[in-house]
């Protein structure tokens, strides 16, 4: 079965410090990778995605993620976090093939930015 692992359930970090949220997925020939963010009492917002091309993808608010095929990882990073980044972050994978478009999610990582 396909699976997505986010090893860290909670990550506290001081404001302006760097952060890395880890995501690993079970290997597959072809995958599309996503990070979603969920702010308190809100829905899931697409943060960034990897579909093809450059393995390093960026969001408009300073996050980046790198697709590493050999390590089956798609870790999310930000060099300097802000209080407003406090949220839960979900890694999701779409295992393409046989016309399936369902997303498989990790359990999520709660990022808490400490002033």
């Amino acid at each position: 079965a396909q699976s997505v692992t986010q090893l860290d359930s909670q990550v506290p970090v001081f404001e302006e410090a760097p952060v890395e949220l880890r995501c690993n997925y079970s290997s597959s020939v072809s995958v599309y990778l996503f990070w979603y963010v969920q702010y308190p009492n809100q829905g899931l917002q697409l943060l960034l995605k990897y579909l093809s091309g450059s393995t390093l993808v960026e969001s408009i608010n300073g996050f980046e993620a790198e697709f590493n095929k050999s390590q089956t990882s798609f870790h999310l990073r930000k060099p300097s976090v802000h209080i407003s980044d406090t949220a839960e972050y979900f890694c999701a994978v779409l295992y393409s093939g046989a016309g399936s478009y369902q997303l498989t999610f990790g359990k999520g990582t709660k990022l808490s930015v400490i002033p």
Partner: protein
Amino acid sequence: EPEVTQTPSHQVTQMGQEVILRCVPISNHLYFYWYRQILGQKVEFLVSFYNNEISEKSEIFDDQFSVERPDGSNFTLKIRSTKLEDSAMYFCAIVLAGVQYEQYFGPGTRLTVT
């Protein structure tokens, strides 16, 4: 990001009752999806819907669940006889025509079964 609304935002129901959750996309869409998130657990796929038919469903989506587009725009998820374990956040998601693979989620409906 395209706008997707869901109603109600919170539904409380008694065990055994039927509930209907609604999803209203604002712009052009190709696929509809329903996911759920039980408190403290991961987001799980329930069903996908394309061209007025179910295209894919998970093992969670048993005979108690059904989906339809009653008026060509709204997309509904019905649970016929709710159980305590159906308590969860239910998210609707859409894919826009021409924006393949990107799923945009609504704000969710919190269902509480008592």
